[in-house]
């Protein structure tokens, strides 16, 4: 039951991400590369959700007989944290640029003569 719920959950999220990304791509607010990246990423997530045994085959194929699913998902979590950190840094940089722009704009706005 839990597996079925998680499979449905993954598919619903994948559809939402794909639809959003496609709309952004059509309106040219997202590049083809970014659209393809999210499409392929979420397609892989859905495949793994539907056929979880793929992970075990992949681990064995890669020669990691002793590594289990826990190791794999541990690596996934570390990778996700890395992405979150990168996003945090990027957002912070954008916020600082926006702040500086608005401050410069306020200070160039002939404010002394408006007094």
């Amino acid at each position, binding site marked *: 039951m839990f597996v079925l719920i998680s499979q449905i959950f993954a598919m619903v999220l994948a559809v939402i991400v794909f639809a959003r990304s496609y709309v952004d791509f059509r309106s040219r607010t997202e590049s083809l590369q970014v659209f393809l990246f999210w499409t392929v990423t979420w397609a892989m997530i859905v495949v793994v959700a539907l056929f979880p045994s793929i992970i075990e085959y992949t681990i064995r194929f890669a020669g990691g007989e002793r590594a289990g699913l826990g190791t794999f998902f541990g690596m996934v979590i570390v990778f996700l944290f890395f992405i979150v950190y990168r996003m945090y840094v990027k957002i912070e940089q954008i916020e600082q640029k926006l702040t500086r722009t608005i401050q410069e704009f306020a200070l160039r706005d002939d404010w*002394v003569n408006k007094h």
Partner: protein
Amino acid sequence: MRERVSEVGTVVIVMPALNEAAVIGTVLSKIPVRIDSYTTVPVVVDDGSTDATGEIARRCGAYVLRHVTNLGVGAATITGLKAARQLDADIIVTMDADGQHDPAEIEPLVQCLIDGQFDVVIGSRLLSSNGMPPTRVMANLLLNVVTFIVYRKIVSDSQSGFKVFSKAALASIDLNSSGYEICSEIIGEIYRKNLRYKSVPIRALYTKYSRAKGQHFLNGINLILGLFMRLMRRT
């Protein structure tokens, strides 16, 4: 109407303001026109208000700078301090626009800076915490500790927005916080630049209005997280 920036010395009073139309006029009207031999020049930074804060402040004789969108109290304070530099201010005061700080206390704080030849004077609400709700006293003490952990400097009221700076102090400090972390960042700069400072007791006026406008619990959490993120970036 106040005097424009004149040949005599000037005390620029920086007031970041967000939707303070209800009180900004009253606060500005209570600011002394002169302190000692200095002319006072109020500078209101309208941080993206959706009410008439800017217009009322301008009508009351203040210089008004407007952020086209809300950036936060830290960014608004920095804009005001940059404006003070452009006005070649001799002394710079920062204070809240919501009426929590008593404009009558500007003069003693400025006088303390002049007489004591300090670089910074901090108006401390905790040296005489009369009228401050106990929860706020506790929250401010906690924030003093967090400020100490992040910036290695302990002061009696690290979160006070009522401060006075000398011209030299303003030229030496380097700030970039957008939010409430600005107060702690200033304490860090006092330590980093080895500035001479003094904490002077002030009264915080807790009206229904200023309580509603003041910091809330979630703001405090954000502030602590923001300070720790700064600590992590430095290490």
